[in-house]
């Protein structure tokens, strides 16, 4: 493997581990705040105990997960320094805001949450708990705005003298991609935490401990989680529409679709054919079960719409809403124009060296005209511009199938919990809820794999491919730190799980019912 591959694996490893902690923080903080709100409203000690129990688990997850995201920023500066410079303040500004907001909100309100029970009024404490939950989501907002910009770079102009993109419209960062991505990620955290709360509470029921507490917790977990899951699906639908507009190649890879059509179906389950490429006649799938009209509806909210496949996009073929075949900029042309942009940048460099202002202005104008295809100039063949279809296709299906299962689980649990006798007798359902907990993380991580693998080969869509974003670092160093991170993060995960299990066990032996 090359240094680019190792650096990508390292980034993926740290991001995946980081995301093990984040969604639980996002969701559990909201559930704790809801439980405390009920306590403040009713004065019930049972709700106070429930709040404190889940708050302790939140604290464990928060403490172990905090600062794990910093490693990603270290990697930007070392492994991806070309990228870091190229994106300039557009990427740096949201991350800086995130750092400041996270530091102040978390150090202040988390402390009040844990230490302030007998120091501040009930209402002030409740406000601190809600602000912790809101602060966590605001932190996520800035990270996701930065990520969305990489997928849909807007609000900037490239300055060849500074060799970086300069922000000219801050508000453009809040694009449709960013908004959908933010709500999709945050609500998926609610859905994840809901399954966590239901799973742990089901263990209480299986063990016949603190049954009232468990039922109470399941109600909050299931209602909040269901709301989160429905919103995740709604914003996922919005994301699909945005991806269709701005990253059609990613959508085609998600579907393993090479030749699109109007009334395009979606593959519910299937196996992609590894021998298929954009320019051969192999079948797309070894086996598939298709839902008619599905992809047209998902991508354009119109069952009759045309959805282009990988080959269509490469050849620059699309069909508009009137049914007319239109030509877009095909990939061969994009590569040619990307190389012209590179040539213009070289000319700018030469003119700059001899202080030729006229030459610099001319080169800058040529660069500006072809800059939207700058990244394609790194490719010699269109094959290099196609994302890994298999990983994207399967990750998408893992996310959707597991997400649908969890929606069903929420509905069954909610119906059951209000028929309490049935629910308490249904050990099978409690076991399913318990065993489902780790699969919720699989679902959540699969979502990120769709987003990040599907956008390859780009770090910044159309402008900077992954292989150009890398620094001059040695493969040995990256391999060393890769295994170092694998060890550290695995230890952190083991610590998290073991401390949590110990705390759940300990909590289950106390009286949490009244």
């Amino acid at each position: 493997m090359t240094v680019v591959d190792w650096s990508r694996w390292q980034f993926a490893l740290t991001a995946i581990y980081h995301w093990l902690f984040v969604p639980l923080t996002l969701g559990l903080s909201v559930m704790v705040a809801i439980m405390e709100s009920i306590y403040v409203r009713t004065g019930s000690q049972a709700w106070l105990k429930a709040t404190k129990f889940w708050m302790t688990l939140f604290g464990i997850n928060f403490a172990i997960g905090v600062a794990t995201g910093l490693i990603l920023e270290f990697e930007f500066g070392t492994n991806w320094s070309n990228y870091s410079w190229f994106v300039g303040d557009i990427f740096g500004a949201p991350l800086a805001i995130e750092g400041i907001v996270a530091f102040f909100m978390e150090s202040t309100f988390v402390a009040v949450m844990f230490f302030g029970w007998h120091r501040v009024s009930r209402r002030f404490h409740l406000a601190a708990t809600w602000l912790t939950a809101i602060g966590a989501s605001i932190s996520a907002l800035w990270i996701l705005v930065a990520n969305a910009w990489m997928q849909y770079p807007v609000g900037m102009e490239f300055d060849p003298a500074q060799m970086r993109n300069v922000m000219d419209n801050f508000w453009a960062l809040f694009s449709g991609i960013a908004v959908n991505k933010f709500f999709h990620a945050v609500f998926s955290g609610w859905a994840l935490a809901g399954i966590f709360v239901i799973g742990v509470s089901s263990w209480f029921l299986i063990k016949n401990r603190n049954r009232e507490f468990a039922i109470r917790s399941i109600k909050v977990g299931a209602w909040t989680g269901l709301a989160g899951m429905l919103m995740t699906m709604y914003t996922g639908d919005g994301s699909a529409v945005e991806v269709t507009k701005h990253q059609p190649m990613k959508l085609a890879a998600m579907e393993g679709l090479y030749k699109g059509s109007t009334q395009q179906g979606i593959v519910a389950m299937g196996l992609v054919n590894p021998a298929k490429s954009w320019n051969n006649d192999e079948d797309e799938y070894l086996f598939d079960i298709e839902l008619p009209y599905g992809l047209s509806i998902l991508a354009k909210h119109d069952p009759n719409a045309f959805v282009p496949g990988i080959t269509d996009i490469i050849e620059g073929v699309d069909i508009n809403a009137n049914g007319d075949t239109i030509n877009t900029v095909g990939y061969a042309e994009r590569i040619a124009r990307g190389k012209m942009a590179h040539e213009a940048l070289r000319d700018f460099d030469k003119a700059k060296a001899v202080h030729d202002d006229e030459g610099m202005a001319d080169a800058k104008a040529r660069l500006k005209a072809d800059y939207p295809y700058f990244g394609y100039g790194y490719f010699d063949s269109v094959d290099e511009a196609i994302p890994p279809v298999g990983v994207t296709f399967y990750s998408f299906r893992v996310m959707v199938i597991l997400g649908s299962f969890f929606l069903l689980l929420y509905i069954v649990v909610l119906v059951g919990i209000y028929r309490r006798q049935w629910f308490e007798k249904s050990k099978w359902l409690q076991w399913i809820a318990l065993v489902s907990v780790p699969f919720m993380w699989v679902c959540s991580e699969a979502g990120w794999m769709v987003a990040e693998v599907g956008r390859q080969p780009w770090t910044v869509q159309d402008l900077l491919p992954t292989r150009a974003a890398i620094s001059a670092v040695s493969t040995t160093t990256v391999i060393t730190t890769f295994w170092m991170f694998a060890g550290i993060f695995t230890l952190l995960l083991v610590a998290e799980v073991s401390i949590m299990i110990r705390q759940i066990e300990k909590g289950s032996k106390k009286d949490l019912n009244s």
Partner: protein
Amino acid sequence: MTSKNNHSSPLSPVAETRRTGAAASIGRFARSAWSMYYDGFRSMTVGKTLWAIILVKLFLFFVVIKLLFFPDVLKRDFDTDEQRADHVRQELLDPR
């Protein structure tokens, strides 16, 4: 010397009282916040383990990993932004 010059503060008596009152409030708030953190840390149970993990983690991240393995290469290797821009231009026009 006039009597005005004998005043150590240029503020009026009312403003001076307000300032003293505000300073006292800030002081009370700071003491209260300090004791909340102090007592909170002292009475922690599972939190002590967590804080140990946080401190070890931060030491590893910032002292070992950041200093030894993750320098900001552009800051380390170049003195000015112009040099950094020139370097990145060369890198992007002649990628590995």
